[in-house]
């Protein structure tokens, strides 16, 4: 991975983290969290850990759906 790609994926990561911290609405926070995950997955693939990348990519939506259960209860 050269420096340009590294900067791009790092920018996705920092943007997602900042937006997740700064948003107020829970739905917008979850959408920003998924931008953060989009920045993390390429780092795992670049290391060559493809099985880990598959497992993480399938587990991340599960935890989002668990959070959505709480959000739906809190904001009817």
């Amino acid at each position, binding site marked *: 991975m050269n420096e*340009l*790609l590294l900067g791009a994926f790092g*920018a996705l990561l920092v943007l997602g983290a900042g937006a997740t911290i700064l948003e107020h*609405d829970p739905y917008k926070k979850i*959408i920003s969290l998924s*931008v953060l995950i989009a920045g993390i997955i390429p780092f795992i693939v670049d290391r060559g850990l*493809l099985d880990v*990348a598959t497992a993480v990519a*399938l587990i991340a939506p599960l935890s989002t759906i668990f959070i959505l259960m709480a*959000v739906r209860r809190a904001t009817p």
Partner: protein
Amino acid sequence: MEDITTQEIAILVCVSIGVISAVRVIAERNTMKKLPFLNVLSFAIAGSLALLLPDPLTILAAAAYFVGTTLESNAIASSYAGGPKNDE
């Protein structure tokens, strides 16, 4: 800029579109209209995953990432629209 290979120019296109769509996801104020930009971002990331490391397992990882993020968007949209009770 000496000779750029085809793989490098393709991954540059994918990554730059991903960064642009991420900025637009953050900048959009309407929650439902964020989701199409998020879809563009996941397309760009899935494409750049396949271009980053050409290996037979990479296609499994890219498909898993794409399906996962689509499922996440589906859950967010359905939950925002009022939960699965008025689905069908």
